[in-house]
């Protein structure tokens, strides 16, 4: 069972926010889904997952990339040809 406090904490970790008025419903629905996930406790089998897949390698060759103008076209805030972001520090 996840408590309302834990659900709020998860919302914070995931940076998606949660309103006080939606917290109750969210927690209730979250727990119903987690309860359903408990069926996975019954899974048995190897812990090492084997796959008939193999790595495909290629040479690291430089190819043309998009022009700066195209890359910046969708950025909502720009300065001197750079994308402007919120402060980190």
């Amino acid at each position, binding site marked *: 069972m996840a408590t309302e406090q834990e659900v709020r904490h998860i919302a914070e970790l995931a940076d*998606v926010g949660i309103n006080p008025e939606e917290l109750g419903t969210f927690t209730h*629905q979250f727990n119903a889904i987690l309860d*359903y996930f408990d069926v*996975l406790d019954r899974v048995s089998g190897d812990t090492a997952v084997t796959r008939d897949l193999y790595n495909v390698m290629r040479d690291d060759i430089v190819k043309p990339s998009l022009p700066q103008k195209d890359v910046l076209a969708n950025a909502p805030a720009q300065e001197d040809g750079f994308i402007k*972001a919120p402060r980190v520090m």
Partner: protein
Amino acid sequence: MTGHEITFEPDDPYHAFLTTCPRAPHGDGKLGGIAVAVKDNISTKGIETTCASKILKGYIPPYDAHVVELLRQSGAAIVGKTNMDEFGMGTTTENSAFGPTLNPYDTGRVPGGSSGGSAAAIAGGMVRMALGTDTGGSIRCPAAFCGIVGLKPTYGRVSRYGLIAYANSLEQIGPMGRTVTDVSALLEVIAGHDRRDSTSYDKPYSPAPRADISGLKIGIPQEYFGAGVDPQVAAVVTRAIGRLEECGATTVPCTIPSMEYALAAYYVTCTCEASSNLARFDGVRYGPAADTKKSWHEAYREVRQASFGTEVRRRIMLGTYALSSGYYGKYYAKAQIARENVKRDFTRIFSEVDVIAGPTMPTIAFKLREKSDPLSMYLSDILTVPANLAGIPALSVPCGKAGGMPVGLQIMGRPWEDERVIDVAYAYEQAVS
């Protein structure tokens, strides 16, 4: 390009499209001049691509997805971008930030999802074919609910380059159309290797649907006709399988014991992948502006809370929770073992039969707003998610009606045997037409 264009200005009473291209240019080729719709999570250079999310409103991709490049080369006219559940997260297309799509058969019902706009555009007669994407049934569910044909190809058969990712290990782009022949023609154009998708495999597709299925062995899993499946739907599908027997196929009962936990394994896997994939939506490189005067987390959270819908936030949170320290072993690790068990079940069954058949969806299309509880919505994906977990090809072909609404026959095949799955659907289509 040879300078042709077609005019595309449909009424769109079903809200199938988010964007239309009134003058759609096209060239010559296999699909020369054919109107093709593209789901709105597939990047189209110069055409707004939103994933039906407010967080991508106004986003104009600077490049084409690989499949879109191929469509243009084939001469197809890309006439618009279709509605969907936000980022593909849903089974009804009601989770679109821009309003639901309606089912052309009954506008009081959903078209299914998440590729509901593509299915409604075809069923409503606006286009002959469309691209969808299928992470846990998102092509097959709307195909079944809207009475059209839809194929989720073998994982790796079609490049995902330019598909805005939700759950990379599960999703595939695939063709949808009015007929099996159209689906086959569209697959021919989009299948094949692309170096920009490291999971893409060099296996082109040459269309030659054959209606001869004599001697074919069809596995009938008991789980696809058991509890939770509407008996009326099961009856329609059983009759359809009877038609395949009349065409010379034989049926063999089988079981998929891992179905017990396949749905949980699917939802753990897709939400974990989503929590990582959707971290890129930060209102910095694209999307609504983050307040650059605020601190990173504050600005980031504000944009995401305001611009992601409830279901998207729920899935990001579920994935974050399942991957958090202390829970990884209980959820993600177990889900991967479960996934392996699903794959093993299919391998075992396919050593004895050529294809597996059953209903695509356990019910007919829901009424609008009928499924308000997220878990009950998730449960309706039970018959489609196994194919995604195993990476095998799976197709839905219309096979009759229950309660006046279309029912889909689902055909699943061995990896890379998309051809055979298409043949069986074609045989059925020919037998009933």
